[in-house]
């Protein structure tokens, strides 16, 4: 049976280092329905980008997939040869990157780089130029005609990210992986790009996986959230449910450490630092920083369990999570 959309099943990525093997992604399982917008959230090093790169097989060696499958259009992407995965990339699953400064070829004009993704049968030069302009307009570049002959260094960061989007969207991918597409940009530009992304996603009926560490962005942009910690998905829930009542202490901590204009409560950063990725044990990786951890949390692998409809948590005490502080957050959440 072929499942629609993208299914990531038990994906594991390991990086051999001089200190030992780093398990950057540990058995991540995700399901992205066609046309759905979801987010991967977590702090730096939690494995969100690594997961995306593994899906399209763009890991930088020596990082490699050691277990799991990525099912898409009836095939396991993790097992395809390089020429086969090349045919999936772009049109099947596309990816935009964090840094628009470096994602464009610095020595080619914008027109050439956008025109390159047009189908070969796109007509004569005049017709191709018209299509390039249309693509640039679609992503909100106002003076598109004038930008054609520009080089990437002549554009602002926001404009470059828009150009990247134009290039990626021109191939009409079924799934778009957006790896922190706005972190390198100003806040005002961030909002514009995300709105644009959201509009185009709905318009083109494409599935979106947004990698971010910005919970504000998550709340505005996606329907479902996967929270990652130390290479694992620790909580998976519809956006509203997650913000209303997080069922993992890490998620609760993340929400509480976001500054808010209308919340009077002091910021509550999560104590401690993320664990050493070398030699992670079986128990809950968050336990050393967790306010409600006990001895049993360190005993054995903790599975991802359903705590409500469509709401999954990798916490033994999911029912306890959500004290006063989190409740306060929830009040202004919805």
């Amino acid at each position, binding site marked *: 049976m072929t499942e629609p959309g993208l299914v990531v099943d038990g994906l594991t990525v390991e990086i051999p280092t001089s200190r030992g093997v780093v398990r950057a992604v540990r058995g991540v399982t995700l399901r992205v329905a066609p046309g759905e917008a979801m987010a991967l959230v977590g702090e730096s090093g939690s494995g969100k980008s690594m997961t995306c790169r593994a899906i*399209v097989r*763009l890991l*930088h060696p020596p990082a490699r997939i050691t277990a799991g499958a990525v099912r898409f259009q009836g095939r396991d992407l993790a097992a395809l040869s*390089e*020429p086969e995965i*090349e*045919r*999936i*990339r*772009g*049109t*099947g699953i*596309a*990816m*935009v*990157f964090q*840094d628009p400064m*470096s*994602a*464009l*070829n*610095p*020595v*080619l004009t914008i027109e050439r780089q956008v025109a*390159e*993704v047009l189908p070969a049968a796109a007509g004569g030069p005049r017709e191709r130029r018209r299509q390039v302009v249309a693509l640039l307009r679609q992503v909100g570049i106002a*003076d598109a005609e*004038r930008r054609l002959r*520009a080089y990437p*260094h*002549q554009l602002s960061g926001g404009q470059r990210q828009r150009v*990247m989007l134009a*290039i*990626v969207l021109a*191939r009409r991918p079924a799934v778009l992986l957006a790896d922190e597409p706005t972190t390198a940009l100003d806040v005002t530009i961030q909002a514009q790009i995300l709105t644009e992304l959201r509009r185009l996603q709905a318009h083109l009926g494409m599935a979106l996986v947004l990698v971010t560490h910005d919970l504000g962005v998550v709340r505005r942009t996606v329907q479902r959230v996967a929270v990652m910690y130390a290479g694992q998905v620790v909580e998976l829930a519809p956006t509203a449910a997650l913000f209303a009542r997080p069922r993992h202490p890490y998620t609760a901590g993340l929400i509480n450490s976001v500054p808010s204009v209308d919340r009077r409560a002091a910021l509550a950063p999560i104590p401690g630092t993320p664990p050493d990725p070398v030699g992670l044990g079986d128990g809950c990786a968050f336990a050393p920083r967790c306010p409600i951890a006990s001895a049993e949390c360190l005993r054995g692998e903790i599975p991802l369990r359903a705590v409500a409809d469509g709401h999954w948590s990798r916490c033994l005490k999911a029912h306890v999570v959500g004290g006063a502080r989190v409740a306060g957050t929830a009040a202004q959440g919805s």
Partner: protein
Amino acid sequence: MTTLAGELAPPRAARTRVPLGLAAGAAMLVALLGGSALAPVLTSYDPYAQNLNAMLLPPSAAHWFGTDNYGRDVFTRVLYGAAIDLRIAVLAVVFPFVFGVVAGAVAGYLGGWADAAVMRAVDVITAVPFMVLVIAIVAFLGPGELNILVAIGVVDWIVFARLVRGEVLRDKNLEYVTALRALGFSRARIVLRHLLPNALPPAAVFLASDIVLVILTTSTLGFLGLGVRPPAPEWGLMISEGRTFIYTGWWAAAMPGFACMYAGIAFILLGDGLADLLRVRGQ
């Protein structure tokens, strides 16, 4: 152009100004090639005709560069010789350039066994000094223009391979290459359409100085009697023949020497100017 675009684009003058070196080098080359092409018009002498009544005459109004030991006009022979030396130089670098650039790009991008194969070949050739290897190959194959081309072809490609491999290695892990891969572009397409264009400018700049090396190699081979056969007016050969009479007629050897120098300076200026031009563009 509208005002806004005018402000956004870099100043036009700065972008299109031709570097002095490029202009000077090009002018010197055009003069040399023009002189060589128009040699039958510019001088009334025959480069091969001997005149035993006019042996080793010093430079004068009739013979600008003097005459050699057979009474041949040295200026005429230098002009005709330019055609030989420049032809060999340009032909000799075509194969090394093309092959070296492709081999370097493939080695750099694919890595692994492809890289190992190319770079071990490069190591082997690097282990023997350039001149020694060229002389050995020509000595083995026998003198003549074609064999010079073969010898230089075998030896000279390694510099381009190394240069382009370095450029490609540096670029292939840049984010934009990953972005291109994420778009589903094939490896061949990324190398040909994105990495090679970025690696070519430095290779093209080096090409200019490499031509100088080949001109000198060609005349060295001529000087050693391994190159073009007499009585062809090849510069190295002329220096070699004139050497015997260095005390009675220095011009017979010195003038073709100056010609070598002139051509060398022209190409070096050209390469230097080209580098300046590309550096401005690359910013």
